């Protein structure tokens, strides 16, 4: 196979799988709580800054993972209690409140680290030969980890008892509560879990991104578009949404450039929002 084609395909897979990890947390929270957490991107951003912080302390890169999970898990806990739980009955206000939260987190990080771009060194340097094409090792590892993570979570969601409970609550909140599923605790844990997933994605992606306070904005929009295109609430929808958004951006970027890629994604999202707001796989 032509090595350039190989690289282009790997780039698309990388884009789609990492995007799916970011969206997964958002989608689980939305599916269960009906809450569109517009601050989800900021948790990715905080995860990335954790990686930067750890590296600045000359600690091993992997130490960033527990730190990010701790920071974002705690933040998620506080946010769920103060902003999300009191507003279950007011979905539009939740949207606004989490939007305000996203600004708050962005500005807070900016006040600490400034507006500048930070670089995180890649923990794994060099490249690997994939079918005759050189591909950066870390990027390849990240793709594999992302796919494994999404697959593992889907498997867990389908097979585990907690997964079944979550699905029960998604289907019918009152009924789930009445058969003894602890709905409030489950909702809290799910929200925290979504935040942790975002933080993990942030740590993993940090070496490949210009780490800056507005990083989350890009992710939340793309994630929202994935949910719009895929349809809110199903995993098939999530993966196909990530495929469409990540794939289109990556392919158009490969043939033209990033600006066109981004513009195309925006146009697709607007068309979906307007003409097919329930996405490709609507929740029944």
């Amino acid at each position, binding site marked *: 196979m032509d090595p*350039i084609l190989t*690289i282009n395909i790997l780039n698309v897979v990388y884009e789609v799988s990492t995007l799916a990890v970011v969206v997964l947390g958002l989608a689980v929270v939305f599916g269960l709580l009906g809450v569109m957490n517009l601050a989800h991107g900021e948790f990715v951003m905080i995860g990335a800054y954790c990686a930067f912080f750890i590296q600045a302390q000359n600690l091993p890169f992997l130490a960033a993972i527990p730190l990010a999970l701790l920071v974002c898990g705690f933040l998620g806990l506080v946010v769920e209690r103060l902003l999300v739980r009191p507003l279950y009955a007011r979905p539009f206000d939740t949207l606004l409140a989490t939007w305000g939260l996203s600004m708050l987190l962005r500005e807070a990080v900016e006040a600490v680290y*400034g*507006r500048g*771009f930070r670089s995180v060194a*890649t923990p794994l*340097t060099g490249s690997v030969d994939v079918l005759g094409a050189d591909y*950066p090792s870390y990027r390849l590892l990240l793709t594999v980890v992302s796919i494994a993570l999404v697959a593992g979570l889907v498997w867990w969601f389908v097979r585990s008892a907690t997964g079944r409970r979550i699905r029960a609550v998604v289907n019918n909140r009152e009924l789930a509560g009445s058969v003894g599923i602890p709905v409030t605790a489950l909702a809290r844990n799910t929200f925290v879990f979504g935040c942790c997933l975002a933080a993990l994605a942030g740590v993993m992606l940090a070496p490949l*991104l210009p780490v800056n306070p507005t990083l989350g904005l890009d992710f939340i929009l793309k994630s929202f578009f994935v949910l719009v295109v895929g349809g809110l609430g199903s995993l098939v929808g999530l993966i196909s949404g990530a495929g469409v958004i990540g794939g289109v951006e990556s392919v158009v970027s490969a043939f033209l450039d990033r600006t066109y890629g981004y513009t195309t994604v925006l146009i697709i999202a607007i068309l979906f929002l307007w003409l097919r707001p329930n996405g490709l796989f609507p929740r029944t």
Partner: protein
Amino acid sequence: MTKIFNPISRRRFVAGAVGTGAAVAAPAVLTGARAAGEFKMATFLALSGPASLFGPTQTACAKLAIDQINAGGGIGGRKVTVIPADGGATPAEAAKAAIRLMLRDKVDLVLGSHNSAVREAIVAALKGRVPYVYTPLYEGGECNPNVYVTADTPQQQVQPSISWLAKTLGAKTYYLIGNDYVWPHKTNEQAKKYIAAAGGKVVGEEYLPLGAPNKFEDAVTRIKAKKPDLVVITLVGGDNVNFNRTFAGFGLDKSIKRVSYLLEELTLFGIGAENSAGLYSAMSYFVNEKSEANTKFKAGFAKAFAPKPPPLSMLGADVYSGVYCAKALVEKAGGANDAGKLMAAANNLQYRTATGTAVMTNRHVVKDMYLAECKGTSFNIVESFKAVAHGQTCS
């Protein structure tokens, strides 16, 4: 501009503010009034945005120069105070800051190290009413009244380096990549001229938005497909770091040489030793340039900021020289108020720089230029070009 209302006294201002909304006006009271007799210099340095990794060295060098000048009696006997502003802001924000500095803080001079979009916005806002010294390398052509440029021009950066690289490396095919704004476009315009003159061919050219979180895997893949001999890079700051890392990450550094026109010690440090093979830079200053003046400058810098001096690079050294240029200019013109006198004084103006002295003609500077090859995270000067003309014709 005609003044309808006299500048108001502080007392009257407070009275007015109380009547109209004290909350709006109070901060102005805190910052508005300054002792007369000081020489107020506004500095637009990269405090935010993609170039903000240059901020610390710029700020430190400005401080060093001003402290030295104040120790020696200030500018024309007036003590220099600095009012910092963010040169990394968007052009519109920078223009508003320039208006604020001019109208409210009444600064005597503006000194800036930032991108050209911001420069154009500041020039338009100041309209020549306040002298403006611009220090970082740029695309050339800035001839607006009361603007003084100490920067490297493409004629100085690109011409000697391209001919040397074409000859020494035997580069035939070139790929141009830069941020989408005026400096990369104009610089590449010049570069294409010199590439053609050297018998080379441009096989690809692309621009990425400035200030966006850019990713480079597709650009690098395109470059890999085109297999050029030399990639000419006019990306700035964080983008330059990420591009070069991605470039080497995809293994392109093994076969393709690169030259970057905004690559100094800080950017190189960000790129990292493992990603810098076959990377060149062409500028008028490298920290390990071995002149006596530079050794003295570096010693002064290290002493001033002991025990932990911030990193030093060309963008800081330029600011240092720019401050001395401002001093020489104002003293020669006998004050900073008269644009005509200042512009006359700028002709053949001699001033102190980090590496010796420089002479200004056409409100630009003739310079010695260097071409360096990256060795790990330091530069190895491979060629010097003496007294390269700036190619500008400002009157």
